[in-house]
């Protein structure tokens, strides 16, 4: 995996559903990467990760490198791009859903 460097977003999977989630600006875990807070300082992201890694809500929280294009947040690595959309063989997962719905 690529070295983590800002800008980053905090991601995890939702405990009950397993769905991919992102830490938003208001501190909630949301389904859309676009809703994720983009940290330009790595230390701030690490602090947010430590603060919000609530095991009652999410599993396996970690930081991912992102790029911001015209207000859209995109994972830098293809793995995170796939996680943010869903599989390529079926129209399943996030690609089928409104991207700003809270989990």
């Amino acid at each position, binding site marked *: 995996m690529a070295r983590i460097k800002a800008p980053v977003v905090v991601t995890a999977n939702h*405990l009950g559903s*397993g769905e*991919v989630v992102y830490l938003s600006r208001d501190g909630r875990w949301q389904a859309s990467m676009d809703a994720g807070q983009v940290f330009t300082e790595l230390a701030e992201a690490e602090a947010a990760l430590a603060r919000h890694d609530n095991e009652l809500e999410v599993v396996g929280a970690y930081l991912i490198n992102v790029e911001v294009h015209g207000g859209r947040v995109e994972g830098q690595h293809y793995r995170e791009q*796939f996680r943010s959309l869903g599989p*390529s063989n079926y129209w399943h*997962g996030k690609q089928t859903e409104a991207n700003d719905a809270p989990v």
Partner: protein
Amino acid sequence: MHRYSEFDRDFVATRNAQYRDQVARRVAGELTEDEFKPLRLMNGVYLQLHAYMLRVAIPYGTLSSAQMRQLAHIADRWDKGYGHFTTRQNIQYNWPRLVDTPDILDALAKVEMHAIQTSGNTIRNVTADHFAGAAMDEVVDPRPYAELIRQWSTDHPEFQFLPRKFKIAVTGSAVDRAVVQAHDIGLQMLESRGELAVKVWVGGGLGRTPILGQVLQEALPIAELLPYLEAILAVYNLWGRRDNKYKARIKILVNAMGIDAFRREVQAAFETTAQDFSGEDQAVLEQLRQAFDFSAATDADEAAYHQALAANPLFRQWVDQNVLPHRVSGYSIVTISLKKPGQTPGDASSDQMRGLADLAERYSHDELRVSHEQNLVLPHVALGHLPAIFDALTALDLQTANVGLISDLIACPGMDYCALATARSIPIAQQIAERFSQLGLEETVGAMKLKISGCINACGHHHVGHIGILGLDKGGVESYQITLGGDGSENASLGEKIGPGFSADDIVPAIERIVAHYLDLRSAETETFIQTLRRVGLASFRDAAYGDPATEVIHAS
């Protein structure tokens, strides 16, 4: 088929109740994820890229129609209406919610199924020849022995925390359809001096260190099977490395010790383990032989079969490609391809599962099989029923006549689902199958095993593909490395890397150039790809793969 005993039912019900409580405690915050993760894994529940995944064991790949219907019901009730059949003859659901998994396990228990030991460092689901009990070339049905091993290994207290996972495969034929040499232990039932015996390989495996198994015993007496397996596992449990998970499989131990020293250690352990087996296992084995016995005769009228062969070229093509003779006269073995070009290899919808359950109940003595090549099998079909089955399969969109051809390829879920994957497998599989189907060349190319893995762990068995493809991450870009010359049959060999990887855009044309090169070089239409490759060597195939993309592709006819 084997049926659960009261003990089995109680055991599974107790485990399910424990798991339900564990999930409740995790959700309530009474268990941390670190505490809970090994518990869910013991019940086949993984966390993958997009969701949880539940892996359900299908022992030796054998299913009843009621079990298949229940798998369809689970797909509809708790997943997205389909399931994925795997290279370990299991089924995986890609979208269950954690909170639903206890209900799913209870639903499985109703049809005598579970997900126990489909993960973790235990003895995993025992696999077997998918034509077991039906193949003409078989010495004996391997499933009673596989079931005996399943009963012995399930919840075996000594082997719940092995250094690493442990996979056993069993075949009853010299023709290896179970890839036994690529397993931690591979077993082949055979006759030796007029007695049934077992040939034992140990230390095979694919993954990051691919090694073929070595022969530990040429002809072990059947009565010694379980104590001997227990001795192998005891030696491995004691001496297998636990300091480095990448060196923890038994293949590393066997190679470090040398096969002769390993055999001596096993023999010494066997002196002890043999004392623990009083013969009860042999009594169980006798019951199992009876449970799996297939000695039916058919009076189905074969006239419809012969008429359909003469009248319907699609039916004839399907029979030629997907149907094999059965050891009982008047019967046949039907392989149902889950590889329609463009589809995801190994996936079946709930409607297809239900349709197949109906066919199995009506025409195949209530049995279905899952093959490690990600197809399904109706093992006991009267020839006279083949036209009706073909029509039903056509209605289910399962009539693809490509078994054993290039589009009948294996692909792991890859990065479309798997958290361990380094690249996607499924789109590459789809593109290759579609390309050769469009070219109309599948039958011309003939027998071909093409296998794709999305990471070095090799769930797609790429090392034993005639053509293997391994998806890797090269600097943040999906890259596909080709191996050639692998073989998972009784003539097992590991493929050799041909050079640098190809991009996702370039991998299909590279495969096409390799296949075109084979068509140019083969000495006759009957010389298969692997035979040509072995005859002429790898070098010119390597040159062809990296050749001029503009001039060497196959042109559609």
